[in-house]
């Protein structure tokens, strides 16, 4: 059960009406609608940070799924496991990003290994990034891509804490899909940082 009221079309503020016009907008919007003036700016930022950009969809999903696993967000891990599969990540890659198997078993491309280590340092640690992590990432990835991905990571961290703190529910459709694909739907990958 969510810890706060999730609003629907009949209970949502009139200033949030447009977000419910197309049907159930999902628990994040349903929760945010409790403060309707946050919807526009928050969803605008999330859309820009998680949506299409200069970075490929594949690598954006690296950032989103890996960050969610590092922060132990069940809701976001569930949702982005399906998104990652849909955009073409292999089953083993998804499992590795979720922290369920070693990264080196799934990723061999040096640029991608460097990127995941950089994501781990951005989302899963405190303080400055280790020089070797930064140097390795910077060797493959341009400044503007790392800036864009840092926004993806930041927006994901917000969503991770929002969804986890308020215990937002995963939709039945997503759970069915994950079970069908053989993924754990429990509290997956809260030890991702140690993998």
């Amino acid at each position, binding site marked *: 059960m969510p810890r706060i*009221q999730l*609003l629907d079309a*009949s*209970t949502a*503020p*009139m*200033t949030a009406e447009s977000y419910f016009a197309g049907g159930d907008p999902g628990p994040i919007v349903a929760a945010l609608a409790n*403060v*309707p*003036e946050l919807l526009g700016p928050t969803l605008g930022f999330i859309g820009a940070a998680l949506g299409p950009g200069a970075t490929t969809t594949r690598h954006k999903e690296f950032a989103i799924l890996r960050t969610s696993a590092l922060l132990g967000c069940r809701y976001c891990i569930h949702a982005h496991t399906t998104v990652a599969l849909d955009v073409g990540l292999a089953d083993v890659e998804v499992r590795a990003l979720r922290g369920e198997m070693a990264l080196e078993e799934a990723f061999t491309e040096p640029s991608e290994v460097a990127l995941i280590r950089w994501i781990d340092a951005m989302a899963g640690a405190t303080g400055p990034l280790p020089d070797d992590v930064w140097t390795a990432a910077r060797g493959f990835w341009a400044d503007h891509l790392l800036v864009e991905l840092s926004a993806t990571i930041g927006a994901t961290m917000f969503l991770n804490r929002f969804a986890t703190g308020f215990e937002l529910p995963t939709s039945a459709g997503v759970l069915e899909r994950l079970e069908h694909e053989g993924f754990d739907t429990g509290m997956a990958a809260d030890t991702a940082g140690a993998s």
Partner: protein
Amino acid sequence: MTDVAIESPIAQAIAEGTLPGRVWLYTNYHCNLACSYCLTESSPRSERRQLEPSTMLAVAEQAKELGFTALGVTGGEPFLLPWLPETVLEMASHLPVVVLTNATLFGGNRIEHGALLAHPNISVQISLDSDQPDVNDMARGPDNFAKVIEAVPRLIDRGVRVRIATTTGGSLDAPELDPLRDLVAGLGVAPDDHLVRPIVRRGRADEMALGVRAQARDIPSELTITADGAFWGSFGPTVRAGRLDLDLLLTRTVLPLSVPANALLGLLGGMPEGNDANLGIR
């Protein structure tokens, strides 16, 4: 009105009649009564959820700057707050204020508490629903009729402008209300200061299936400030089964007042005309 206010979109909308000029403030939600049709389920046990005096003063000041033309203070029972008269007096230095009350807290020497509001920019609006004590008291509580009948002339004697508001489940121009109109006039209240309005089916009235059904556009779009945020209309921040209705919530942000005022103005732009005038909702 300042030059800034004349140029503001809010002031323009008020001048054109698109936006009502009054800003309402819900001082608190608790009340010494528990009326059957109460929009906010107010009672002695209600959570207070009160506005701070500093917030009320800031709303008054910014309302004037934005071009609003009047203020309204309601609750709950506002006079349960000991600082209310002094705060309203200060608000009245910015804009005219009407304060709604059940007038049951003015017995004996406590009348002087209400008498502090003898000011040309302030009126006190008191609820009275019937000329029959038992009928009035059935909805509003024991001895309510007697306390109102006692308080009204005493306030008028002390220079307070008193308005009477009658809330009815029947027709607004029913002949059955004539004795009440006579009673109110006999208390010294001018006919124009006696409002008759319907029960709006929201809050406790909705739970009891009382009053007229009204959609958002049927409710006067007066900006309404509460401790829970800013709402469309003074009938907006209703409570049902202990939970605040959010359907008429504009913003949780109340200050600066331009935030909810602009949200309200933005909604008005795309909304067809309502039926509030025909329903008599005010």
